């Protein structure tokens, strides 16, 4: 049930965050292919009115292989959003690296390894404390 990419786009379809994980053959989607791909994906996703993981006007998109447990994956996106919500009090835009760090705690080597909010934010909070 490998995860291939994680995207956050706004309602204009502009990418706000993207994370790519290795494909089946171990390679990563090349940088120049990403932008057109993201455009196509967000266009398709935004076309659907239901079934969206959408908070205010941001859309969370998770890419996995066909035949996945799609419902489970959708719930995982909810889990991600809840975790980000749990941690961030201030503007995320200036802390985009922390979003990456949190996601890196949740998804490793294409798989979900952690979903406990406490455990996910533990190292980030420890870093905050040390500052």
């Amino acid at each position, binding site marked *: *049930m490998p995860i291939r990419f994680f995207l956050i786009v706004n309602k204009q379809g502009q990418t706000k965050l*993207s994370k790519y994980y290795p494909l089946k053959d171990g390679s990563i989607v090349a940088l120049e292919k990403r932008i057109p791909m993201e455009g196509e994906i967000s266009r398709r996703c935004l076309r659907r009115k239901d079934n969206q993981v959408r908070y205010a006007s941001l859309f969370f998109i998770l890419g996995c292989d066909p035949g996945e447990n799609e419902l489970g994956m959708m719930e995982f996106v909810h889990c991600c959003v809840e975790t980000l919500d749990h941690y961030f009090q201030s503007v995320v835009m200036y802390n985009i690296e922390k979003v990456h760090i949190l996601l890196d705690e949740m998804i*490793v080597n294409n798989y979900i*390894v952690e979903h*406990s909010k406490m455990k996910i934010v533990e190292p980030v909070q*420890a870093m905050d404390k040390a500052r």
Partner: protein
Amino acid sequence: MKFTTEHFTWHPANAMVVREAIGVSRSFVDFISKIGDARSKQEEDQVVSQEVENMRTEMNHLEGQSAVNQKEFLVKLIYCEMLGHSASFGCIHAIKMTQQPDLLTKRTGYLLFSMITRDDDEMLLLIVSSVLRDLKSRDYISNWCGLTFLSQTVNRDIIPAVIKDVLALSKHERSIIRKKVVSVLHKFWRCDPKCVEDIESIFRLSLCDKDPSVMAASLPVFLDILQRDPKSQKELAPTFVSILKQVGADRALPPVTFNHHNVPSPWVQLYLLNILSIVGRDDPNTSSHMYRVISEIIHSASQIKNNVAYAIIFECVRTICIIHPNDGLLDVAAKAVYGFLSSKSRNLVYMGLSSLHSIISLRPEAVNEYQDVIVRCLEDSDPIIKHRTVDLLCSMVNPVNLQFILDTLIQHMKEMSLDGSMIAELMPKVSHLIVKASMVPAQVIQMLWDAIEEEGTHPDIITLSIWVNSESQPNEVVRTMDLIDRICQLSHRETMDESMGRQIVNALIKLSLHCEESREKILQRMHEMSASRSHVMSQMATEAVWVLNTDVVVDRQRFTNNFDGKFEMDVHMKFLEHFVEKCATETGLSYVPPERRAALRTSQEMSNPSAMPIKRLRFEEYDTPKTMSPSIVGRHSLHRSQSIPNEENQNDAMIKPERAEENLIQGKSVWGPDGYTPQSEESPKSDVLPALLSGIPNLSSPAKTKPSTSFDEKKKNDTKHALFGISSQIHRYPETKKEVHSNRSREKKEEKKDNDANLLDLEPTDNRPMEPTLSPTDAHSHWTKLMDDKKRFESIGDLVVVPSIERVSGLLGTSTDLTLTVATTKMYQNDGVILVLFVLNLSDKDILSDVQLSWDVSNHLKLQTESAEPTAQWRELPPNRCVPIFHRLSMEKFSSHANIRLNISYRLNGTGQPRNLTSNTPAFTHDFIRPIKMTQETFEGLWNQLNIEKKLSVPDSYQKMEDIACENVKTSSIRLKLSALLHLSSVGGAPTVENGSMAGKTLDASLCLCRFVREERSLEMTLRTRDAALGQSFINDMMRLIQKK
């Protein structure tokens, strides 16, 4: 929910507040706000490009700037990379930042580095020192930074440098570090499964870690391992079951922390269920231990009504359908699916349709309960749900509903015209259904007919339509003309792509046969198309013009309706005789069958041994042209294979190669279909038969060659039997594995040997110890039988050109996983080796899809495909189908222990994880050696010219057996045995055990002479060649064969 778009957008009003609150610089805030304000991608690109320019210059002055600025620089680079502008110029800065004391900066440095480098990047070596320092640090967050980096980016070169420190952390007191170590080792394992000794035992330990999050992190590792080798973790099945039990009962994990919407560790449960489905697949025993826990999980998930719980139920249903079926559980699953389908939520209906797919394959009758739902979903307004339903329909086709399903499918495809990917997904299924249908319903044809005219029809659908309409052979001439007109019009379209063009050309050629009136028009159009800018199109059209202008092909009776299943084959191809005769007279060349070509070549070489390797022009007169017989290798040569006689007419066959005798000076082919044929010299028929046979190239009686036209159950079983012979017991005992089976057959063989050792030893052709399962004759007759039923093959005979075969090896490299079986056999020709791969779908109902072959051949070996592009032909393999694939095998340089390894991956019914199957076929030096006949004098002459000499001593034990054999039957001497074994022929008079000589040549006509002398305790063999590598590898292979003995 507090988390809103405000978090991600910029508001000037609170800029100051924000800056003061989180301490960011003005330039940083400006950059972020500009990106946020960008209205379009172009505008955003401009901003970022500008910033990249600025940063490139700024980079040089970063030293000495404040820590905040340096970190912001990193974050800006992250933005650039995410927005599609390469930030790799910041690589060195990232490395510098990883050495900062501030942990967030350090981690961000690693983060950027991971984002901009690939695993094979040389820059990786530069960061190793930072990683090592962090791994050794006493601060656990530093450890965590280093480990997180390693879990994302690593390559083989740096593993040895860091592995010691990583392993040292595997017993860290903090679970977060232990968890990361598992992830890092997972990544290492992906790079190289053997990077750490006994890495799997480390994973097993972490699976039982006291902290649940470490356990959770090790599940993906096992998923990966199982994907590569589904049978590897059987012994862990009870562990997985017990973990799932504890997780489900909420016992293993401290509640609250790991709950998500009241469901305990939902993704851990999903992964565990997924693991169980792989482990329990096709394994009744392992599966039986899972039933209980699965029903518990499904029960407790049913108590909760939210999406997470539904996701778990869905996974349970899927697992139930994959593992060895249990009726009780299937009932539960069917009930759950019913719940999904009757839900109001679209998501759940979608999930229901997905799971119905797997339920139907196990319980076809279950469909009846869902009829209403399926009908309702077919009319659903949501294209995705509709698409799923149509997809589902494909798996429930029967003769009654075929028309309806085809109708619906095509209708759906027309509606989907905008979405190419969905059409591409359905297209193979539709074509499959149409091919499967014995008669395409008129209504469907009409519908496709109409589709051509409609505006905006997807090109794929038009292609389909052209195909179906041209194949279904309209009855009235008017309609045919109309169709031709329409197709011609289509060919003018700009949107025409290659596949459509190909279809158009094929259709027009075919239709021209039915409609003389439009012939001129078609010809005209083809002429126009041959000027096409696309080379492929132009080539196709030019060929079409040629075909249309040639009168040979026009035999209308031959092009009857393809769909009615009757395809008459004229194996003699009498209609070509006139053409062949004409050509033969014009050119003055007669057709030389391949087996004679080699003999001719040898004769030329032998007449002038000193110049042997040099290919010379032939100055002699050509033979007087003879009346051509219908033995041209071509379209229908498929059936020539059947001409190779079976045991009944073996004697005739043995003499056949002698035909060329008159033309030969010294060397000649002495190889019959059953190997070396020593008796042929003494055969009384040998004088009469060559004359008789010369006019009749190896075409056997028509009764034998006639392809059977019906395809029934019995024949299906015949296929299985034909392919596996005695191994058909596999079907009766599904739990029996192939390895067990082959042992069994070996045992059988050994028993036989004990009982009647002599008898076994007297079968010269069965003396190939490496291929114990089937004698060549058996393999051959089985194979012939297989070929007999044309219907069974996906690639209809036209594409398969079967060469003339001198000898066939037994089945080699057989391998099966009880769904798919592959076996290879080597066919020896006088001038080559053909490796035939049989791929058989054993299943009665499952379609194997996405079948992919990957060959891995040893150095110096070469495989060239003989059939037309195999993958394209049968990406899908229907139940009970067998496909042969032909490859020409050649060896560029001789080496021993050559091996051909095939990995075949496929999926069942287009769903689930790909499965893999491997088979190994050894290649021997003697595969490439052919016997030649020569006199003792020639042998002596040649012997002295060959400079490479190799020696081998055959141990005594082998000899004794030979002695027994010799006493019993005169002809069965060691020479005979060895020669059959090594593809050499004996030289000189009556065979003795004391000494003798044998001769053979490689496919590229390099001589190989062998001499043996009986010493007191052993048999001394001496081999002479020109090629040192050949000599060495031949000797090595002899060793292998003799030791096997």
